[in-house]
C-alpha cells in the first residue's frame, strides 16, 4: 500500500512533466505519457518518495504555490537589486565571508528547498551542508553577521519557515 502511494506520487509528477515537455495534449501524448509515467514511477518510487502520506495533504501544495510566488517576485527581486547596487556602486561595498547557518527542518526535501533558495538568490551561495550539525556553510557577499543565529535571520529564516510548511 505504501509502495502504491509512492508510485502514484511519482506517476503524477512524471506525467505532468512529460505532457508539459511534449507541449501537446493529443491522445498520443496522453497514452504514451501514462505508459512512460507508469514505468518510470515503478522504477524510481523508492528513490524519490519516502513518506507518501504527505502527498494527500494538499495544503502543502498551497504553501508551495504561495512560496513560489513570494520567492520569485519578492525575495529574488530584492536580492538582485541589492547585488546590482553593489556592482554598480563606484566603491563596490562588499564584505564577503563564509558563515555558518543552522537549520531545523527534518526532511531532506525541506533542507534542499532552503539550500537551493539560498544559492539561487544572488549574493549567497551554499558551500556545503553538514547534516550531523544541521548547518549550512554559506558564502555571503555582505556578511553583516558572523554569529550563526543572527546570520540565519538574514540569510534563510523566510525560506526555512516555508520549507517547513511545505515538506516537514
Amino acid at each position, binding site marked *: 500500500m505504501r509502495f502504491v502511494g509512492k508510485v502514484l506520487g511519482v506517476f503524477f509528477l512524471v506525467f505532468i512533466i512529460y505532457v508539459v515537455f511534449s507541449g501537446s495534449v493529443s*491522445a498520443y501524448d496522453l497514452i504514451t505519457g501514462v505508459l512512460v509515467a507508469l514505468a518510470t514511477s515503478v522504477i524510481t518510487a523508492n528513490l524519490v518518495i519516502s513518506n507518501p502520506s504527505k502527498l494527500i495533504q494538499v495544503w502543502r501544495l498551497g504553501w508551495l504555490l504561495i512560496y513560489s510566488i513570494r520567492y520569485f517576485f519578492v525575495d529574488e527581486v530584492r536580492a538582485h537589486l541589492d547585488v546590482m547596487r553593489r556592482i554598480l556602486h563606484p566603491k563596490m561595498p562588499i564584505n564577503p565571508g563564509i558563515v555558518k547557518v543552522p537549520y531545523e527542518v527534518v526532511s531532506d526535501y525541506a533542507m534542499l528547498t532552503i539550500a537551493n533558495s539560498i544559492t539561487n538568490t544572488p549574493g549567497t551561495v551554499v558551500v556545503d551542508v553538514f*547534516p550531523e550539525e544541521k548547518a549550512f556553510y554559506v558564502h555571503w557577499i555582505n556578511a553583516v553577521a558572523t554569529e550563526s543565529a543572527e546570520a540565519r535571520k538574514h540569510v534563510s529564516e523566510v525560506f526555512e519557515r516555508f520549507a517547513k510548511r511545505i515538506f516537514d
Partner: protein
Amino acid sequence: MRIKKLLVLGSLILLVLTFSLAFARGALGYYPLPLPRVRMLASWYLYTTLNPQYTNFTAMSPVAVAAIVWDYRGLDTLFETAVFFLAVVGALTLMRGVTLKSVLNNANNKDNNYGLSLISKTAARLLTPLIIAVSASIALHGHLTHGGGFQGGSAAAVAPLLVLVIFSVYFLLSRGISEKPMFMLWTAGLLGIYLTTLAAVFIGLLTGLNAYVFQNQPKFDAPVGLPAQISGTLISGSLFFLNIFEYLAVAGEFTLVFILLSMPEEVVKSFISGETYE
C-alpha cells in the same frame, strides 16, 4: 603576461579579419555560406517527407531529418548502430569477468560512505524520474519533432550517470541498475530494431505480396508497408518503432559503459591479472 594577452587578442582579430576578407573576395568558393534558397535535393526531401499523394516516395513523417535517418538513408543508420554495437562489445570484452559483486558485499561500501553532499543527493533523487520523462518524450516524438531514439536514449542515460556520480557506483548497482539488466535492455532494443526492419518482409510472406527489407511505406511494386497512422494518430510506420527500440538500446548501452568506466582500477586489475574470479 600582458604581452601574451595582447598577442592572443591581436591574433584573434587578425583571424576574424582574414576570414572576413576571404569570404568577401570569394576565396573559399563562390558559396562558402549556405545558399539563401533551398537546394534541389533538400527541396525534394521536404516535398516528399509527408506527402500522402506521393505514396511511392513519402516517409509519412513531418520531420525530414528523422525520415532521412530512418527511411531514405535507413541502412546507413542501421550500420551506425552496428558500429556502436561493436565498439561496446569491444569494451565488454576488455572487461570480461570483471564484477563489483565481491566489493558490493563489503559493508564499507554501503550507501552513505560515498558521493557528494546531501543537497546534491536529494536533488538527484527528484531529478532522476524527470530526466527519464523528458528523454522518453524526446524518443517518442522523434517522428513528429526534432529528437529521436538516439537523442532520447543518450538523455535517458544521464539519469543513471547522475546517480553514479552523485551517489556511487555501489548505490546504482545495489538498486538493480547493474550490468546484466542493462545488457538485456540493450539486446532487447537491438532485437526490436532487427525485427522492425524485417516487419514488412514478414507481412509480405504472410500475405504473399512483394516486400523489401527495411521497407516503411508501401511502394509501387511492394504494396505492403507499415501503417502511417493508428486511428488518426501519425506514427510514421517504422519510424515510431525504430525510435523506441533505438532509445532502449542506446540507454542500456550508455549505462553499461558508464558502469564499466566507474569500476575502481584495483578491482579491474585484480580480475584481469587473474587474482580474483567469480
